[in-house]
Structure formats: structure tokens, C-alpha cells
């Protein structure tokens, strides 16, 4: 049994402040990981800016913008927020509920298409 396990079984009251601090050593990763992610976030942001600067349109524009967006979001959540190192039970509890927003988004996209259609048909100039 390791020192940390003994402390976990005995509860925090038995551990001294120093020992508790030692057991808390958590999410300790080499600094290089953060610099690499930092660099990639810069590159991806510059790339999505260039999509606008180059004036790309249509599906190509949206594919690139969404791709860069999800890569950036993934890097931030996974490394900066340490999600890849967290327990899987927490990762699922946090990352799955936002999928409801995607369902909501699809529903509202269908709804707004219908609103747009009625506005074009009945209001001439729209609203």
C-alpha cells in the first residue's frame, strides 16, 4: 500500500499539512506539452483568420472554419483543462450533456428555415 493509499483510508485528519500537499500532487505534466499546444492554438487561429482573409466561400470555408474550431476547442479541453488525464467517469459526465445543444441547434435550424420561407412568401421584404 502506498503512502497515498494509507492516507486515503485514514482520512485527511491523520495526514500532516505537508503530507496532504504531497499526495495532492496532481496534473503534473512537462511544460513542453503546454508550449506545443500553445503553438498549435496560434497556428490554428492564424489559419482560421486566413480563411476569412483569403475570402474563401461556401462549403470549403465552413469545413475549414469548423475543423479549426473543433481542433482548438479539443486542444484546450484535453490539455489545458487536463481532461485527457481525468477519470473517464468525469469526462463522460462533462462532455456528453453539451450534445443536447447540438440537437437544439438542429431543431432551431429547421424552424428558422421555415420562418424564413414564410417571411419571403408573405412579407415581401422580410422582417
Amino acid at each position, binding site marked *: 500500500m502506498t503512502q497515498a493509499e494509507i492516507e486515503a483510508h485514514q482520512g485527511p485528519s491523520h495526514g500532516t499539512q505537508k503530507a496532504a500537499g504531497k499526495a495532492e500532487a*496532481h496534473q503534473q505534466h512537462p511544460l513542453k506539452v503546454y508550449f506545443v499546444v*500553445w503553438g498549435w492554438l496560434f497556428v490554428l487561429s492564424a489559419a482560421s483568420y486566413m480563411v*476569412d482573409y483569403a475570402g474563401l466561400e461556401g462549403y470549403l470555408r465552413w469545413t475549414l472554419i469548423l475543423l479549426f474550431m473543433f481542433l482548438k476547442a479539443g486542444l484546450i479541453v484535453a490539455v489545458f483543462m487536463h481532461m485527457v488525464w481525468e477519470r*473517464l467517469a468525469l469526462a463522460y459526465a*462533462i462532455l456528453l450533456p453539451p450534445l443536447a445543444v447540438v440537437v437544439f441547434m438542429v431543431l432551431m435550424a429547421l424552424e428558422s*428555415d421555415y420562418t424564413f420561407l414564410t417571411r419571403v412568401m408573405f412579407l415581401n421584404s422580410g422582417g
Partner: protein
Amino acid sequence: MSEASHTAMGTVQPAAPGLRGVAADWSSDQRAFKNVSWGKAMMWIFLVSDTFVFGCFLVAYMTARMSTAVPWPNASEVFALHIGETNFPLLLIAIMTFVLISSSGTMAMAVNYGYRRNRKMTAILLLATAVLGAAFVGMQVFEWSKLISEGVRPWGNPWGAAQFGSTFFMITGFHGTHVTIGVIFLLIVARKVIRGDYDNGRRGFFTSRQGRWECVEIMGLYWHFVDLVWVFIFAFFYLW
């Protein structure tokens, strides 16, 4: 994820790898998150609720934009900066993006130095994060006053659909508020680091809980979330 994580709660082996372990963790009569401290779990759950708030704002913006038959103002031109004779589309927004990403980088390193018990470096990096965050808010103030002087209002603007102003002020305003609150808390955490609260376990003025170095990481979760929201605002509001 297959190996055990170390925290204040000690070493907790996963019940089983993969989804089987998740199901075991969520089974009855036990703590679901095991070695994840209550403070960190609560911050994550708060961030999920905040995700829904921003998600609803962005969905409302999408609905307004897709359902209007009036042309939407071109963000690339509206947010352009004139420098000399040249017109740079979205330049200020790009600078704001880089500033916020850099503040996320310094925050991540502050957390790292915090777990190394390096008070000086942690405090310096936290203050650097706060300065970058304040710079971001400052640029947002500049952007707002520029648009307001050009006639953008929540109920109308000179270039097209009236909903542009209302969604813009609502979404960037709510995000800017988050950044401002984050800067205030960064300064509070930096002060606690400098004073050594996380080494001697001094109790917080509000929660009365003993200070511990994990507070820096929890602060970091909030700050990275603010950056995360900006990633989505940048893509959907400025690049659409």
C-alpha cells in the same frame, strides 16, 4: 486513463477499463468521480451549465440570422481596421484572439508551477494572465465604442438586419463579463499565492475552506473555459 490518477483522495484504481469502468463508477452507493475533489467537480458542473447558457445565445443568434430575409451585415467589413491606407478585415478580433490564447497559455503554466510549489513563478504567471485578460476587455471596449459611434444599436444598424446589434451586444457582452470576473478572481488567487495561503492552508474569506494548491487549477478551468467560449464566438459570429 488506464492507469491510476493521484490526488488528495489518494490512489483510486479504475474498476475496469473503458465504458465498463464508467458504468461501475456511476453505480449506486458510491462517489461517481472518486479521486476528483468536490471543488474541481463543482467547477466542471458549473462550466457545463455555462456551456448551455452560451449555447443558447449562439443558437438564438443562428435562429435570428437564418430566419431573417434582410441581408446580414458583413462581419469581415464591419470589424475591419483601417491602418494607413490599407483595410485589414477582422484585425482587432484576430489580435484579441491571440491575446486570449496567450492568457490561456500563461494560465496553464501557472497551474503547472503551482503544483511545483513555486510561489513566485505562479504569481507572476497569474498576474500575466490577468494583464492579458484586462487587455482583451480593453480591446472589447474599443470595439464596442467604435461600433456604437458608427450607429450600431440593439434595435438597428446602418448595414442590414436589426438583429445584428442585439445578438452582438448580448453575446460579446456576456463573454466580456466572464472575462472581467475572471480577471478579478485571478487577482484574488494571485494575492493568495503571494501570501502563501496555499502552503499554510489559510482559510478563505468567503468559503472558510483551507487554501490548497488545487485552487489554482480550478481557477484555470474557469479561465480556459472563457477562452473556449471565444473559440466558438470567433467561428460563428465573426467568421460566418
